[in-house]
C-alpha cells in the first residue's frame, strides 16, 4: 500500500485560499474518483470538489472551518501499489458507479 497526498487545487480567478465547509467523506471510507469529496468556500462562491483519486481516505490535513492556501496539503489517500504506480498519468475516464451516500438529514 502507498499514500498519496493532494493539495488544494487552483480554484481560478486569482483566489489564494479557501475554507473547508464540510468534508463529504470520513477517514476510512473508500472513495471513487469524481465522487463528492469536500465542500469549500472562497470569497466569491462555494464549490464542491470531486475526488481526484479512487482510494481509502487516510487523513485530513484541514478541519472543517479552517482555511487552507492553494497548494497546501488537503487530504491523504491510501491506495494500492498498482494505483500508486500510475500516478502522473491521465486517469481513464469511467462512468462513476452509483454510490448511495445520501441520507436523510438527522433532524
Amino acid at each position, binding site marked *: 500500500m502507498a499514500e498519496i497526498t*493532494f493539495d488544494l*487545487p*487552483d*480554484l*481560478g*480567478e486569482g483566489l489564494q485560499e479557501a475554507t473547508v*465547509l*464540510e468534508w*463529504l467523506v470520513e477517514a476510512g471510507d473508500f472513495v471513487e474518483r*469524481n465522487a*463528492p*469529496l469536500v*465542500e469549500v*468556500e472562497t*470569497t*466569491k*462562491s*462555494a*464549490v*464542491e*470538489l*470531486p*475526488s*481526484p*483519486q479512487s482510494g481509502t481516505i487516510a487523513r485530513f490535513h484541514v478541519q472543517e472551518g479552517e482555511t487552507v492556501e492553494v497548494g497546501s496539503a488537503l487530504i491523504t489517500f491510501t491506495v494500492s501499489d498498482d494505483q500508486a504506480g500510475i500516478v502522473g498519468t491521465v486517469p481513464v*475516464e469511467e462512468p*462513476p458507479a*452509483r*454510490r448511495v451516500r*445520501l*441520507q*436523510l*438529514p438527522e433532524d
Partner: protein
Amino acid sequence: MSGSGDEDHNPPMMFATTPSGYRIAYRRHPGERPVLLVHGFATTGELTWESTGWVRALAEAGRGAIVVDLRGHGASSSPHEPADYSPDLLARDLLAVIDAEGLDRVDVMGYSMGSWVSLALVALAPTRVDRLVIGGVGTVEQFGHWGVDAVRAALLDGADPATLGDSPLAPLLGSIRQAPGVDTEALAACVAGMASHPLPLSSTVPTMLVVGDADPVTAGRDDAAAALGAELVVLPKRNHVTTLSARGFKQAALPFLEGAVRV
C-alpha cells in the same frame, strides 16, 4: 481535482430561440427525467449548478439536468432595456428551452432570483412543471428592498456598494464589475425590470423551499412557505452562498423530486 475537472466532458452549449428572437443558452446533461436548473442574479448556470455539485448529485440519482443561462446572463442574449426583464418574461425563456428539448413536463429547481423565475414558470405553464424546489428566497424582493438606484449605481458607476449596507448584494456587486464577460448594462436592466413586477408568491405544484439559517435574503421564509404551500427546509449556519452547495440541500431536494415523503 479542480472543480472544473468535468469540463472536458461537458455536453455542448445549446441554444433555444424565443418568440422574440432571443437566444437562450443551455446544456443538457444526460440522464432520465432531466431537472431544469435556474440560477440567480449575476451568475451563470455553470457556476450555480455545476461547480456546486448539483449536476453530479442528480446524475448519481439517475437524473439528467438542463442547465440554462437566464437572459442577461452567461451565453444568453442580453438586452439592455428594463422592459425586457420580468419574472414572466424569463419564465417564457425557460418554456422555450423545455419546448426545444421536446419535453412535456419537467421538475424545476431555482435559486434566489431563479426561484422567482421558476414560480413564474409554474404560473405561466402549470401543466409543464411536475415538482418544484426553490431556495434562497423569503417574501422580500431584494432589488427594491435595497434600492434599485443604489444597485444600478453600484453596477454601472462603480459606486461604493457599502451603501447597500449588509445586503448580500454588496460583495456580489463589488466583484461583478471586475469579472470578465459580465454585461453590467444587462444586469442593471434586469434589476430595474425584475423590481417593477410583483413577486409570484404562489404555486400550484408540489413545492419545497430550502433556505440557510444565516441568510437575510430569506426574511419571511415561514410566510413564503405558507403562501406557497411548500415544505420548508432550514439549513443551520448556511448563508446565501453556502446554502447552494450544502449537502443538506441535496439530501432534502433529491428525495423530494422523487416524490418521497420526508420522515
